[in-house]
């Protein structure tokens, strides 16, 4: 039994935390937040590429470090803690994973080394409007080797070089260029960019099978585990911020952290964070081992992490009182990010539904 990071993985995680403390303070997050024309922190992106993190789980033959998904989970947890304003999730958890799952040898050889090097940014385009993505809701279609349709919102769609697009008959690779128009959208979390992408006879290449919804879900299952670690890192950071403030702030003659209303709120945060951590670890195991339990483990990890980060980010603001409602406080950075991460691979309600569906399938088997 070893249900924990190994010593080497802990070392990698500690190094990642130190690196991000030095290179991704909240001033860097705010630089993206406060400048509408800045989609992401390009120098941090390059620094992260130089660390090899983009290719942590990409095999060495394709230019990655070939470490594994547990290592990628460790990095994700630290990126979440730092609220890193870079297109890491889109590029690594969605597009690189989609390529590794469904790509032909040629597709992998063409794109994975560029992703690992940080020269290509990816985006995963599935949604076409309000509500969950279903086969019936899909309008994007391919005819004669070109793709036509509209995707909204597409996280990092305005800065992506390579877009994996869900069409009626499967996933497609589309390169930014002719037939692809991007319009940047105002979002809840401006530290992560999003766009409306309009495809008009855009040249495309099939990625994997004809069952697009199943392929999307397979990518979502993998991304959900990795996102859960980002959410966990963010939730831990919120608890840490709330705890520090509760110890520093005095009201009615004593530290507010001495009042049970605050103590119990923070204890509840701790409970949710630990449930999320334990479930994320199980998801990491299932992802890394290629276990048949992955769909259920991923849904469990995602629901737990979304719940924990939402609770921690909103109660962190509450603990900070009026100060927490100001722009200058960092509380809202995490509140915003918690919304972005909870929705980017489908909302918690849809994942709860998927979780129960998996239980039903298991019971029937």
């Amino acid at each position, binding site marked *: 039994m070893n*249900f*924990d990071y190994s010593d080497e993985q802990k070392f990698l995680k500690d190094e990642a935390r130190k690196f991000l403390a030095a290179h991704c303070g909240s001033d860097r997050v705010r630089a993206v937040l406060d400048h509408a024309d800045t989609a992401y922190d390009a120098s941090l992106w390059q620094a992260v590429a130089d660390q090899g993190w983009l290719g942590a789980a990409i095999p060495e033959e394709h230019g990655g470090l070939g470490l594994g998904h547990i290592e990628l989970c460790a990095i994700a947890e630290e990126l979440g803690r730092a609220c890193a304003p870079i297109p890491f999730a889109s590029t690594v958890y969605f597009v690189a994973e989609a390529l590794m799952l469904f790509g032909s040898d040629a597709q992998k050889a063409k794109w994975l080394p560029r992703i690992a090097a940080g020269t290509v940014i990816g985006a995963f385009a599935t949604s076409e409007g309000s509500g969950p993505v279903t086969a019936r809701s899909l309008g994007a279609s391919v005819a004669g080797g070109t793709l036509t349709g509209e995707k909204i919102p597409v996280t990092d769609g305005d800065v992506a070089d390579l877009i994996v697009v869900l069409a009626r008959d499967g996933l497609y690779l589309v390169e930014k260029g002719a037939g692809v128009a991007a319009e940047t959208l105002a979002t809840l979390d401006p530290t992560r960019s999003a766009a409306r992408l309009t495809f008009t006879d855009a040249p495309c290449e099939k990625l994997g099978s004809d069952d697009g919804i199943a392929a999307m879900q397979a990518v979502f299952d993998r991304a959900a585990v990795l996102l859960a670690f980002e959410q966990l890192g963010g939730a831990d950071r919120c608890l840490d911020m709330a705890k520090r403030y509760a110890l520093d702030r005095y009201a009615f003659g004593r530290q507010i952290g001495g009042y049970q209303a605050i103590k119990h709120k923070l*204890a509840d945060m701790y409970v949710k964070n630990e449930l999320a*951590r334990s479930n994320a670890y199980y998801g*990491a195991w299932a992802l890394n081992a290629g276990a048949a339990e992955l769909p259920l483990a991923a849904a*469990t990890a995602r629901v737990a992490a979304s719940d924990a980060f939402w609770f921690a980010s909103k109660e962190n603001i509450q603990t900070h009182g009026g100060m927490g409602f100001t722009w200058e406080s960092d509380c809202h950075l995490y509140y915003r990010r918690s919304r972005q991460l909870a929705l980017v691979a489908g909302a918690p309600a849809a994942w709860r*539904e998927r979780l129960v569906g998996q*239980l039903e399938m298991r019971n029937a088997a």
Partner: protein
Amino acid sequence: MDFTDSDAEAAYRATARDWLAANYAEHQATQHDSDIARGKAWQARKTAGGYACITWPREWGGGGGTPIESVIFGQEEAQYAVDGGYFTIGLGMCVPTVMGFADDATKHRFVGPAVRGDEIWSQLFSEPAGGSDVAAIRTRAVRDGEDWVVNGQKVWTSGAHYSDFGIVLVRTNPDVPKHQGLTMFWLDLKSPGIEIRPIHQMSGGSNFNEVWFSDVRIPDAQRLGPVDGGWKVALFTLMNERLAVGAGGGVGPKDILKFAGQADGPDGPLLKDSAFRQKLADWWVQSEGLRNTRMRTITALSKGQAPGPESSIGKIVAANQLQEIGNSAVEAADQYGIIADPALAPLNAAFHMATMSAPGLRIAGGTDEILRNIIAERVLGLPGEIRVDKDQAFKDLPVGA
């Protein structure tokens, strides 16, 4: 990350499995007069095999093993319908306290028989006026020659009616602040002047007792720790409480999943009701979170480390979930849900029983509120509660209900 045993762990598990298969068959084939006699016989069998108190030294009757071996045996033993509940409090809390504070003669007299299950121990701390505030104990002990004379009342004493001995915390000095006037003793529960009355719980059961003391004489030789130094001894006992008090059984997500497959919902089967499905997912996430948290604890034990603070979340989550799952199944039946007759209610009324027993689980072994205080103070490092009674003599403290 992996779930596989180390070579040594796998070998231990294989041996334990063989032992359990052989011994459980023999145990089953033997007739016993009562449930408790059956429990004692199994405990004696485990002791002979080195599987009772696995982490204790062999010289005391234990198994001389490691915490992870204890976990492995527990996992394997859980596959069989054996009830070790009679010994949990004695071996988990009382006897360790005796081992920590009694003289050698006392230890040699009592530890072996307790491990073997020949004698059962109870813990007598809680009182009507001292629940969460355990140090507010009023049961009074007055020195008389070589004895102490004890008068008062204990409450919530699990298993006192079938126990032989107990450890009792009493007030020996009311003129000093509450923590400084307590003393711990061990005693024979058959002593003259002790009356044990079962408590009729709201759930209908009677697992706990009131224990009344009327001029009960306890020799000073039975004192554990110094006179007026009992609070430190009590903390030693309670340190073991969270390890000894399990999350408890009852219904879980798998039970209500099965129920929902057969029950009618507002529009077709309950399992197809989207509001129900959302709740079921959350329960699953909680239960899996606890299961996976136990895996983290076992990992620490397997590496020879102390479990981390995450093990403290179990009871809060499990007790509240039990209440929610029980009540959700009750409500799902609409008007029929008020029927608690096991012949009529689903799963022999297990959801109804969960609804009625969960309030006790949220209180026993540390209330939800005390456990949140403990997490906030010991894990997160937030300030302790303001204690207005800290510097006052116990006899001068205001008292209410």
